[in-house]
């Protein structure tokens, strides 16, 4: 695994952005761009990430970014890839779509699925703060069970959509999960994805202080708990092979997983969570890890 000195020192985002203090997405984007390097063209739909890039006239990032309407991210990326192919630059320049969970699991799923089915040579990264944050915390398909949002005042009654699995079903060469609290793992996954041909999908859990309801200083801790409880395992599916990532390996043993309550009670969005929902979390986590074990044994 890379260490702190292996990471590129160049920064691609200038300080002084509009992101909230303690925003994990800003951190995730920072290291994704470092791993991708300067020969990258990005496309971004409406989201907090749009705002990070700044208002008209000035921008914060040193790379080319095409802002695209909500539903079109996958199509916009395919368009950029086609034009690069036409110019003979497709092998040199990496095309990356970066979108929120609303823009991925709900609004952009059709264009993304189309691009994946066509085998468009690009990386699609979804930073998942588990709601429509930029418009004031409305629930998305990626909001987890029991979470309070502006549109789920009693807590969400449906579980989180499993987007990495949906992308895996497209038979693309690379699907990975990541987490803003595991920077080295995230950095390596972007570096790896950059060198694979075809459609690559990386789904990154992205803690959000105002949307989740915790002190900004705790962003890394909260994100870490999602993985330490076994709720958000880190893995890759590379050419059909399932690989459990290093930070998650010890959680194969259930006794090494922290109780899910530790993660839930640290966030105000779960303050009214019912025992029944906690039970559902526990059975979900158990089933998820049984499946991981099965996959590791049968390949």
């Amino acid at each position, binding site marked *: 695994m890379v260490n702190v000195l292996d990471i590129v020192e160049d920064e691609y985002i*200038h300080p002084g952005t509009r992101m909230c203090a303690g925003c994990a997405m800003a951190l995730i984007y920072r290291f994704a761009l470092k791993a991708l390097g300067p020969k990258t063209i990005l496309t971004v739909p409406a989201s907090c990430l749009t705002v990070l890039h700044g208002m008209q006239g000035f921008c914060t990032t040193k790379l080319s970014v095409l802002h695209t309407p909500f539903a079109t991210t996958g199509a916009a990326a395919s368009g950029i890839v086609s034009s690069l192919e036409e110019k003979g630059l497709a092998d040199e320049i990496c095309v990356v779509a970066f979108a929120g969970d609303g823009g991925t699991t709900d609004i952009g799923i059709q264009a993304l699925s189309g691009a994946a089915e066509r085998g468009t040579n690009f990386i699609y990264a979804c930073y998942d703060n588990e709601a429509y944050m930029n418009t004031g915390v409305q629930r998305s398909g990626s909001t987890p069970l029991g979470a309070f949002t502006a549109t789920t005042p009693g807590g969400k009654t449906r579980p989180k959509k499993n987007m990495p699995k949906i992308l895996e079903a497209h038979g693309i060469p690379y699907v990975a999960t990541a987490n803003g609290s595991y920077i080295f793992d995230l950095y390596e996954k972007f570096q790896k994805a950059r060198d694979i041909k075809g459609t690559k999908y990386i789904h990154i859990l992205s803690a959000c202080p105002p949307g989740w309801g915790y002190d900004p200083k705790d962003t890394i801790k909260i994100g870490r708990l999602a993985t330490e409880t076994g709720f958000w395992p880190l893995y890759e599916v590379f050419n059909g092979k399932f690989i459990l990532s290093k930070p998650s390996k010890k959680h194969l043993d259930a006794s090494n997983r922290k109780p899910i309550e530790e993660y839930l009670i640290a966030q105000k969005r779960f303050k009214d969570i019912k025992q029944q929902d906690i039970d559902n979390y526990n059975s979900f986590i158990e089933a998820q890890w049984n499946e991981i074990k099965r996959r590791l044994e049968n390949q």
Partner: protein
Amino acid sequence: MTDLKKDYQKILASVQKPVIGEAGKTGTWSRLKPVIDLEKCIPAKSGKFSCFNCWLYCPETVVSREIPPKINLEYCKGCGICMEECPVKAISMEEVKYE
């Protein structure tokens, strides 16, 4: 008559200008700022390039990866992540005056 093509190129050039402090001096967002105790800080004490958790986890890219690490308080939002993630508790959040 205006030269539309030229105007368009001008707009494009301005749209694409990356600047520091696009959102203004974000250091004004918070009263409390991180202060590093160099007697505790691992690279400052050992003179070796190691740790740099404060550089690693800063979402605002305002910490430098040097010995000792420096924090650009003009843009630091005072989130406190660096304080939480410092393995030796060398960082505390204080009211400091800066230029």
